[in-house]
């Protein structure tokens, strides 16, 4: 198996791990972690496959991923602020009806 493929598949694995965590865990901080891991998986797919071009990798996906990382940190920051507010307002760290909604 070639290196790009290996990493790309690892990216798929991370995506699914993240997805699993997002769905299964109730604690909101874990959900945020899960989303970040999922995001990293997507970035890994994007960059790994850019390695298929031979000597010098395709820079466009690299730029996209840098954009993606900044977007991800923005989203995470927003999520965390929201979480702090939510936690302060409700005294809970999970969504109310997390037991019965999908």
């Amino acid at each position: 198996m070639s290196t790009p493929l290996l990493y790309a598949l690892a990216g798929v694995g991370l995506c699914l791990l993240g997805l699993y965590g997002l769905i299964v865990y109730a604690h909101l901080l874990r959900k945020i972690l899960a989303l970040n891991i999922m995001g990293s998986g997507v970035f890994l797919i994007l960059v790994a496959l850019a390695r298929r071009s031979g000597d010098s990798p395709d820079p466009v996906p690299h730029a996209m991923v840098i954009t993606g990382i900044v977007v991800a940190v923005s989203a995470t920051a927003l999520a965390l602020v929201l979480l702090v507010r939510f936690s302060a307002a409700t005294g809970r760290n999970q969504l109310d009806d997390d037991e019965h909604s999908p």
Partner: protein
Amino acid sequence: MIEASGTPLPWIVWVILLPLIGAMLCFLWPRQGKTLGLLTALATLLAVIALYFQLLDGGVIRYAVGGWGAPLGIALYADGLSMLMLLMSALVGVGVSLYALGYFKHSPDNPAGFWPLWLLMWTGLNGLFVAGDIFNLYVTLELLGLSAVALVALAASRDALGGAMRYLFVSLLGSLCYLIGVALLYHAYGTVDIALLGTLVERNPATHVALGLMVVAMLLKSALFPLHFWLPPAHASAPAPVSALLSALVVKASFYLLLRLWFDVFSTVSMDLGMVLGVLGAAAIVWGSVLALRQTRLKLLVAYSTVAQLGYLFLPFALLSPLAWQGGVYFVLSHALAKAAMFMAAGNILAFGGHDRIADLDRVAQRLPITMTAFCLAGVSLMGLPPSGGFIAKWLLLDAALSHDQWGWAVMMMIGGLLAAAYVFKVVGFAFTQADAPHDAQPVSPFMEWSALALAVCAILLGLNAHYPLELLAIGGPVTFVSPSP
């Protein structure tokens, strides 16, 4: 098609930059937020109108940002469909801006963030509507999603924070799914330009998986049944102007994106999935309406009504005719105006009585006549009764269904219309009666009443001037891709 180079004022750029600049100004001078926000809204409206005339003159516009052109650079693209979406956003946007002037004066919700966040959201919307590049679409999608979440959270109630949290997760999950699709497409075809992809895409595993992921992402974001669970809490708990924006525009943006992908990128492979979307749409109509009917809170009712109405948008995927497409797009427009008006009216009622329990509306028909008129006019459009935009949309969809003897869809639409009538009149009926315990009323700003009415009237007028939007829609765009008009 014109290359919009050398044009002294490329309006397609300004419809994005103006709200962005406005947002920064509002952030810099929060005390002047209202003035700056309103000025920006008007300026953006003017820019959109200018772009409209440019489009009428020269047809479809393609604009290479940085002068590079695809595949290296990013292209902006505007055809009739994008233009309609831009106009819709501008109209609703100005309406909501006016509404917000009154709303935040009395509301306990945090007003400081509203203007910059809303203008950034507008930037995202306009950027999304004119994007010609799937990665750029991802960035606009995030701009849109995050600002929407932040706006919901402005209400700062427990419900709103929870709703915003859930909305955020859904939004991010959707974006990531979409991004996987982008990664697959880029690595399969070496470009992210929509027009180029459209010519390159062929049937292969990567394309199919990308299609599947992107479609699911967009369904999630546009809350198609059964992925609608996040919408009612978020839309119902947000501050009223935000609810209006979310229901009117934000869910439509992801629908628009789906439309673009469906026709401009995946036109060769997407058709098999259409029936599934249609069936889900039909289920959404019934399920959303029934749940709307069962609500006891006005804003939740309106939010579930959005779930139901969004179902109609997906019927054209199964009906597959140009007429149905026109109907679908018309539905987007009329629902945007009507639902914005309805949420604004609901906000007025909430501000007026301090609650939104439907059974205790307590003579609002007499006490808030303008608001109630707005609510009813919007309701007329939602029910699809003439003369309203909703009627035209329904007419087109019915025409498409019946001319191909597809009876099931017609029946669904009729049931949907009747259920819509049922939940609208549930509210209207209680608006006439007196509550057991009359409550003291707060004054409602005239800005709030009249802007709601203005949008509702627009929703009605949309039913009387259907040929303008339809002619505009015929300029380029996916609808002409399907097949020539009959």
